[in-house]
């Protein structure tokens, strides 16, 4: 069957693009706010949701979203706003979540052979149920809408939280909105390339975009574009790798996506290295 006639490929391309379009804008703000660690932490807590969902025969996507929203709320409540409290609070949530994932995955692999561990940790874009596409689209839409509405306040508070406060912006609402978008972006990214690698899709295209442009709006669009290109290239290469050794098995999509993201980042770094003096 040809690439474009394949149903799973269709689903993978649609979901991949939706995920990348969310991860781009959210990732740019994650990088400039210095909150990659929070993103990683959400990804790890998401594994609890994903593996727990597997255990009770629910689509792991719903588990990722549910757990990430709870984790984001807990992180916000524990004081993510304070720069120093942030790492400690995130670390505490993180340890507990990963412990639970270990338990769930262990229980799951004892009772069945659904490949839960690989799916949760490293993604499953080719085995996605086409029925989840509307849910993915709505989730992506909510995250993009939150980022679009909070765009200017987020930018201002990324420059200086004090400046934003002096302008009468409620720091809590802005930061909670951003964390909500981050939780959704990480959940979607986790379904595509797995919980462990999801920050690569969040941070990689954004970091690449930051090398290429100095305009905030352009960086957001470039990150979305680079992410989409990377996921599509990953899907295509993975499909193609079916004919590579070991034959008839195919290489994982996650590997290709992360690899393309890395290659794009290195290329952008090399291309702009000569412009170091320029500001």
């Amino acid at each position, binding site marked *: 069957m040809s690439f474009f006639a394949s149903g799973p490929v269709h689903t993978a391309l649609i979901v991949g693009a939706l995920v990348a379009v969310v991860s781009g804008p959210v990732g740019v703000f994650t990088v400039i706010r*210095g909150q990659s660690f929070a993103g990683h932490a959400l990804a790890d807590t998401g594994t609890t949701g994903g593996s727990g969902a597997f255990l009770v025969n629910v689509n792991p996507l719903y588990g990722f979203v549910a757990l990430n929203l709870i984790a984001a709320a807990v992180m916000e409540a524990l004081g993510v706003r304070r720069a120093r409290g942030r790492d400690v609070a995130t670390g505490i949530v993180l340890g507990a979540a990963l412990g639970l994932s270990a338990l769930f995955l262990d229980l799951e692999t004892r009772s069945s052979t659904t490949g839960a561990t690989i799916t949760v940790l490293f993604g499953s874009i080719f085995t996605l149920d086409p029925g989840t596409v509307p849910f993915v689209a709505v989730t992506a839409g909510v995250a993009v809408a939150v980022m679009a509405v909070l765009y200017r306040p987020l*930018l201002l508070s990324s420059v200086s939280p004090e400046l934003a406060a002096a302008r009468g912006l409620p720091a809590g609402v802005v930061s909670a909105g951003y964390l909500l978008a981050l939780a959704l972006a990480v959940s979607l990214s986790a379904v595509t390339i797995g919980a462990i690698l999801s920050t690569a899709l969040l941070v990689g295209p954004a970091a690449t975009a930051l090398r290429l442009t100095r305009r905030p709006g352009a960086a957001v669009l470039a990150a979305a574009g680079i992410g989409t290109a990377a996921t599509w290239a990953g899907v295509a290469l993975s499909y193609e790798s079916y004919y590579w050794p070991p034959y008839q098995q195919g290489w994982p999509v996650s590997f290709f996506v992360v690899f393309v993201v890395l290659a794009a980042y290195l290329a952008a770094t090399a291309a702009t290295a000569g412009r170091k003096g320029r500001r």
Partner: protein
Amino acid sequence: MTPVVQLRDVEVTRSGRRVLDGVSLEIGEGEFTGLIGSNGAGKTTLLKTVLGLLTPEAGEVTIGGRPLSRRDRLVGYVPQSIHLDPDMPLRARDLVGLGLDGHRLGVPRRSAARTRAVTGALAAVGAEGFADSRVGRLSGGEQQRVMIAHALVGHPRLLVLDEPLANLDISSTNEVVAVLGRVCREQGVAVLISAHDMNPLLPYMDRIAYMADGRVASGPTDEVVRSEVLTRLYRHPVEVLRAQGRVLVVSGG
């Protein structure tokens, strides 16, 4: 004429410590006021009170004759030490634009009026030359000038600057102070700037607010910076020495 800012017997307590202890201060239209004092004297607390970020337990703060409200656009603010990532995708021009509408929701929309306001503010601080550079890659002095443009673009009647000269070298310090002096004179906007050293400000300062231990002595510079006035403020003997147009406040016998 109504003063731009008026504080009357303001008291502020933070974590059990009285940081502002009956502070009274008046700043008139277009006046350049230096808020001078050592670390911990209460300068930042006073500025945050003027900005409405802190609510006093006692006393009264009025801006333009009206009680303070937090969203008051009569005041432009340059906060203390901003650390921007050199890779942050934000040009000087974008940051100044945020001064205009950064508190609004949604994405910015281009308009001739917006561009004109941003260009005007950049020109007022002499930042045209690096308007399209990333803010995080500018020198400390250039960043401060962009921050001043950011605060100025909404046409406030008062600029509040918290230690903008900290971490600047001598030439950048003079440059930033000269820009402030010019903006104050040409645009008639009042300036309230905190610093631990008054000397760079002396050529531009109309009035001084000298701070020690949560108390303020304010007035024309020559009337306040005198041994007996500061001795009363510090409740400890101090001496004011003058040499080659510079002022030095030292602990006295």
